[in-house]
């Protein structure tokens, strides 16, 4: 089952992105905690792109493709943007100690994505960047 959503690069649109994912995952019999975790991971990647790759410019946009396997075993997301590529896999995680000591407010988002998702891929070409995320459903 495929779903598609396009949003301007504005932080205010994150809620609409979350609503889109949550609404469609609900159709696949997942519990609230699992839906919330998946929504959270995609929210984090989108927020990161909107803020760091697009400077919250609403004239730019990102595209989200969501595909639930035919056997309902898991879900794949493709987050496509045309900004400066940000390779999540090359991101060096700070430690929680560093975050507390330096009173940093950022740094936790991509840690969450890595803990939640089962597979993360990043592809970049001059035309577009694709961040691919896969999550296996817990009851399969």
């Amino acid at each position, binding site marked *: 089952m495929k779903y598609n959503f396009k949003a301007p690069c504005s932080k205010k649109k994150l809620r609409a992105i979350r609503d889109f994912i949550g609404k469609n995952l609900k159709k696949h019999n997942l519990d609230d905690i699992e839906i919330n975790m998946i929504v*959270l991971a995609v929210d*984090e990647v989108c927020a990161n792109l909107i803020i760091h790759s697009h400077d919250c410019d609403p004239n730019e946009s990102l595209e989200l493709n969501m595909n639930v396997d035919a056997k309902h075993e898991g879900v794949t997301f493709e987050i496509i943007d045309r900004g400066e590529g940000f390779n999540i896999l090359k991101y060096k995680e700070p430690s929680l100690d560093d975050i507390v000591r330096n009173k940093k*407010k950022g740094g*936790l*988002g991509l*840690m*969450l994505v890595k803990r939640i998702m089962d597979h993360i891929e990043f592809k970049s070409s001059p035309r577009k960047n694709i961040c691919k995320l896969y999550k296996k459903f817990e009851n399969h």
Partner: protein
Amino acid sequence: MIDISNKTEEDFLILTLGGEVDASSSIHLDKALGKAIEQNHKKILVDCNNLNYISSAGLGVFMSYIEDFQSQNINLVLFGLSDKVKNVFEILGLDQLLKISKNLEEAKSLC
């Protein structure tokens, strides 16, 4: 969208959060906590009964004040978290760095 209100009860400051704390709205939580510390409150309870969602931006706000809590002897306890919101704190083990309790009474006793 986030709603934040506050009231004092005995020597506790109770911050009530409602709605969703994300990259767009976490600034309001940051300001509310910053103000509570500036006003010298030492016992801060955060009511999360109506909090539907929190992302890393919200977690980061709490994390960024942990040093202040320790250096200024401030006790902050979150209470009334739904299972899905509590789970977000647990994914990175932040439930070990912050005090989280079931309800208001328990939160007061932890302060």
